[in-house]
């Protein structure tokens, strides 16, 4: 990576988290952040065109959004890593982009996975050799705070927006909150935006009735969190009148993860070994939702996601033991939305009719 004073940094589109990266780049690294346009069919088409066909869909959207970031003027890309094929994706994306003729500096975090903060600091210094540890630390703490706030607001949104009396109030408050986050310059901006959104949420009248339908959504890390990739799954469910719950987000999986061993102890009757980056958590969450008496579970994965394919037999056992219906959805880059709509509506009808018989 060359020595450069003023960088234009970008990050692939991941759910609603790009505002967090923007905040950290601007406030901590004191560099320019380039925000590419929201993901659309065009993003996916770019990815499909240049990625290997059999790779999972998230790689294609990530690659597409990197291209869109470079086209928008970014000269430096940051890429994350994970414990499945995502660990190799950084390298693969870089090779493809360089073959396409793009010139850019690249920080692949997979090369700094020692877990020591000293090494992360070394990685960040590559982006700005003059970056000071104290402002970096401050921006890091504030950035993580923003991340947790986004996760909290998003989860409140999907649990409640399906029951508002006047349609659109929750969406308006949520959009306002995301707008506030995109303008945040300091920690207090984040707090103010968050407090305002919480207050508005609390003041919106909702009618849930005595037994609202509750559905737990779980599955593959990227597709389950990203509304473009899962074709607005959570919004579709909420619009039908469902309280949508999802544990999987960056706060829960990465910041407050109880640990593989601890989670594994809670699902001992279902599996003995660790099965993949999110498998243990998903099995535990499925069991947890079932024990809480939720009305159904939806398992989401992109086509070819091996860790999530592996947990399906375990989920089937949980479904039988707790008598909880489970819908399995596989997202592929070639899908239209009609098939998903049919399956989600049918699933809703099923759990709704079943609930009427139970109560």
């Amino acid at each position, binding site marked *: 990576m060359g020595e450069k004073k003023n960088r234009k940094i970008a990050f692939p589109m991941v759910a609603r988290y790009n505002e967090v990266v923007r905040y950290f780049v601007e406030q901590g690294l004191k560099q320019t952040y380039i925000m590419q346009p929201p993901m659309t069919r065009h993003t996916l088409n770019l990815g499909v065109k240049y990625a290997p066909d059999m790779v999972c869909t998230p790689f294609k959207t990530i690659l597409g959004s990197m291209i869109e970031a470079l086209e928008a003027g970014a000269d430096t890309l940051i890429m994350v890593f994970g414990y499945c094929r995502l660990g190799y994706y950084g390298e693969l994306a870089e090779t493809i982009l360089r073959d396409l003729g793009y010139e850019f500096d690249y920080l692949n975090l997979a090369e700094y996975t020692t877990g020591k903060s000293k090494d992360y600091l070394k990685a960040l210094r590559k982006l700005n050799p003059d970056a000071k540890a104290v402002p970096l630390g401050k921006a890091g703490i504030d950035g993580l705070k923003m991340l947790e706030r986004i996760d909290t607001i998003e989860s409140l949104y999907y649990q409640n927006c399906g029951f508002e009396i006047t349609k659109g109030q929750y969406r308006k408050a949520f959009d306002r909150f995301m707008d506030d986050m995109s303008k945040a310059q300091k920690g207090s901006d984040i707090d103010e935006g968050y407090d305002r959104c919480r207050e508005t949420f609390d003041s919106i009248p909702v009618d849930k009735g005595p037994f609202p339908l509750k559905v737990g959504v779980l599955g593959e890390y990227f597709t389950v969190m990203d509304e473009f990739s899962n074709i607005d799954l959570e919004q579709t469910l909420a619009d039908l009148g469902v309280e949508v719950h999802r544990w999987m987000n960056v706060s829960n999986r990465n910041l407050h993860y109880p640990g593989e061993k601890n989670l594994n102890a809670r699902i001992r009757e279902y599996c003995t070994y660790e099965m993949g980056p999110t498998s243990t958590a998903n099995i535990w969450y499925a069991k947890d939702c079932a024990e809480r008496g939720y009305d159904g579970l939806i398992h989401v994965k992109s086509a070819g996601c091996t860790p999530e394919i592996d947990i399906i037999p375990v989920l089937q056992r949980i479904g039988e033991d707790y008598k909880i219906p489970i819908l399995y959805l596989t997202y592929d880059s070639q899908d239209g939305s009609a098939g998903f709509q049919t*399956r989600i509506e049918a699933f809703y*009808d099923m759990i709704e009719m079943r609930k009427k018989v139970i109560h």
Partner: protein
Amino acid sequence: MEDVYMGIDVGSISTKGVILTKDNRIVASAYIWTEGNPIGAVKQLLHLLEEQVSGEEYRIVGTGTTGSARQLVGTVVGATVVKNEITAHAVGTTTFHPDVRTILEIGGQDSKIILVENGVAIDYAMNTLCAAGTGAFLSSQSNRLGIPVEEMGEIALKSSHPTQIAARCTVFAESDLVHKIQVGHTREDIVAGLCQAVVGNYLNNVGKGKKILSPVVFQGGVSKNIGVVKAFERQLGCPVLVDENGHLMGAIGAAILARRSKKRKEFSFDIEDMEFITREINCGGCPNNCEIICVYRDGQMIDSWGNRCQRGDAAAKKAARRFSEEN
């Protein structure tokens, strides 16, 4: 004047309709081919239904549509209920067979399994991205063999040694089929082998991991194939019931759902004479470029769908203005 309810099920291959009384008596029914023209098929269907009830004292107060063209047809007939085919089939079947535990359904393009407990569906699965284990597989192979698809069942029953066909994939099945013909397997054995292959694929795909309990009801177009019914009975080890109205069950379910809904709207057969046109436009509001379907009745736009955000509504309105200027 007796209040009755109409259900219309427009699938990829066939279009089905029933008129149902409040005590589940079928006073009119029809089953025709869709032939790639759902609106034309529905007009023809309505004509057939109208003939059967003409002169009778019936008033259709609720209309339900289902099947893959449910939204389009729902708009055209002014349906009071538009429901997905999985729910419609479950409701129809549990009404006529309250003790059913498993519903097997194989249609032209998709296949599904619905598990029932205490008269309500508790689990279902539907095939994805693959024609193996559907009616499309049987009809493409019957074409190759030069046998009408309707006769396959009877031919299959004559076989005592069904041929093993590598049928995991429809495309590869075809090459294996040709090979088996060339090495001298009889037609009966091959047809019986195909019926078994459909069942094997169905149970390995949509039926995977599902506990199939008796009583089992089998429906959809393929249930008319006795060879497939027998193959199911052999593999499941229990009797498989095929209702004489099994092919109408989606339409029956839609009619029952229209009756259960509180919405009432008197249906008039006048729409047979109206002109309906659909137009596809690309929104263009953002790079997502949603495909929006606009439906016009006698030149007036009556509905549009397909957009993921409000920008699409504006695009549809603009298209409607342009459409009325052009015509």
